[in-house]
């Protein structure tokens, strides 16, 4: 579990490559790319989209190993869906396995879903996941996401690490009392008490946070410090991405017409 925490960007800010690109631009690009991606139907266009996402991952310095592991974990979730689809979609028979007939249409649909989901999540990790959570909050604020939601995001990311430590402490205390998880009601009850205790402590902690904030003049408003300006390089990024997206749409349109 420690490999997942704290919530931190896989890549580093200011690590060269494209990492200096304006975060607002990255969020908007990720959103547009995702919408276009899920609308594509041609496998060739989708392969190109996945290649584009891989290029983004390289450009934003996503480390190959951990990224591949995370993608594999996501693919594991949808494995059954992908395997079952060829056999459940009616259409032209392709091959028969244990008395079940796979259809070309089903296989195509499964491949579409696999390509779409991987392309989108990879582009999100590359474009948005490489921004630090604090910068992400500021950028969302600049994009007119409601302030309360931005502040909730900032508080949540700020305290996930703290509460992870608290969880580790409580688990250590349980282990010191010879607790070992098993398939017993005792285990589930103990985990329930653990979660309940974490919530109680979290509420007490939030009271202390609130008092400390009031001490420093908190009046219900939070200020976002970051100021963003589109630089010369950002416009080049817009141009390249725009051309890439147009090319994707062009390929899709051309293949549909053909």
């Amino acid at each position, binding site marked *: *579990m420690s490999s*997942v925490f704290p919530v*931190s*960007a896989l890549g580093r800010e200011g690590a060269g490559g494209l990492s200096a690109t304006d975060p607002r631009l990255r969020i908007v690009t990720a*959103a547009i790319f*995702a919408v276009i991606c*899920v609308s594509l139907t041609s496998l060739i266009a989708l392969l190109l989209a996945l290649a584009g996402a891989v290029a983004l991952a390289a450009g934003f310095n996503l480390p190959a190993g951990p*990224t591949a592991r995370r993608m594999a974990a*996501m693919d594991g*979730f949808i494995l*059954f*869906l992908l395997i079952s*689809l060829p056999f*459940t*979609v009616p259409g032209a028979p392709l091959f028969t396995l244990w008395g079940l007939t796979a259809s070309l249409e089903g296989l195509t*649909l499964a491949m*579409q*879903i696999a390509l*779409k*989901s991987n392309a*989108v*999540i*990879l582009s*999100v*990790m590359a474009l948005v*996941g490489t921004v630090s*959570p604090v910068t*992400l909050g500021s950028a969302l604020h600049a994009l007119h996401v409601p302030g*309360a*939601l931005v*502040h*909730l*995001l900032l*508080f*949540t990311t*700020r*305290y*996930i690490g*703290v*509460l992870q430590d608290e*969880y580790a402490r409580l688990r250590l205390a349980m282990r010191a009392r010879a607790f070992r*998880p*098993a*398939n017993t009601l005792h285990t*589930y009850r103990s*985990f*329930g*008490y653990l*979660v*309940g*205790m*974490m*919530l*109680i402590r*979290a*509420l007490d*902690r*939030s009271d202390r946070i*609130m008092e400390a904030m009031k001490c420093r003049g908190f009046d219900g408003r*939070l200020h976002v410090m970051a100021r963003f300006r589109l630089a010369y390089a950002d416009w080049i990024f817009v141009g390249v991405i725009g051309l890439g997206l147009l090319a994707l749409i062009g390929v899709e349109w051309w293949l549909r017409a053909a």
Partner: protein
Amino acid sequence: MHIVDGALAAPVVVAGTVLAVAGVARGLRDIPLERIPATGVLAATFFVASLIHVPVGPSSVHLMLNGLAGLVLGWAVFPAVLVGLILQAAFFGFGGLTVLGVNTLIVALPAIAVHLALRRAISAAPPPKAAIWGAVGGAAAIALTACCVALALTLGGDAFIPAAQLVLIAHLPVMLVEAALTGAAIYLMRLVKPELFHPMVRVAA
């Protein structure tokens, strides 16, 4: 509980997004600015708790605890879930982007349903009885979540029915675990901090 991009029909994605935006807006209205720290810390707690793996049979499952989250957070569970899903998509590569709305709905809708149905009973009943209601809420939230996932998938076509059936079956053991866990958590919270369910009334009302 992660539906990925590309697996759902476009109308499902659009409808899910619209409903999720409405839920999040309602949730944000219920959080006065000075309760944002408390909501954030609780949201972070549920985020951490959802990474706990609990043994089930030969395998293990990670907790979801959306029933408990609904009981504690009220409508604020919508923005809290959305924030959690954004973090998971961007930093852990789980879930997706166009499906953020649908996934928010899948987790938060059962949570708020449990909240509306059981919160009053849980804050009023003596702790052992509250624990039983808590267990009912924990199980109901998972059952509803599994049904929402299955529904969202099958709306895309009959071809998704086997996958939807698998989702339903896979959640049966999770339901039992979450019931026991939620019941125990509610029991402890009612004993240790009886007022815990009261300050949230302002948020939830």
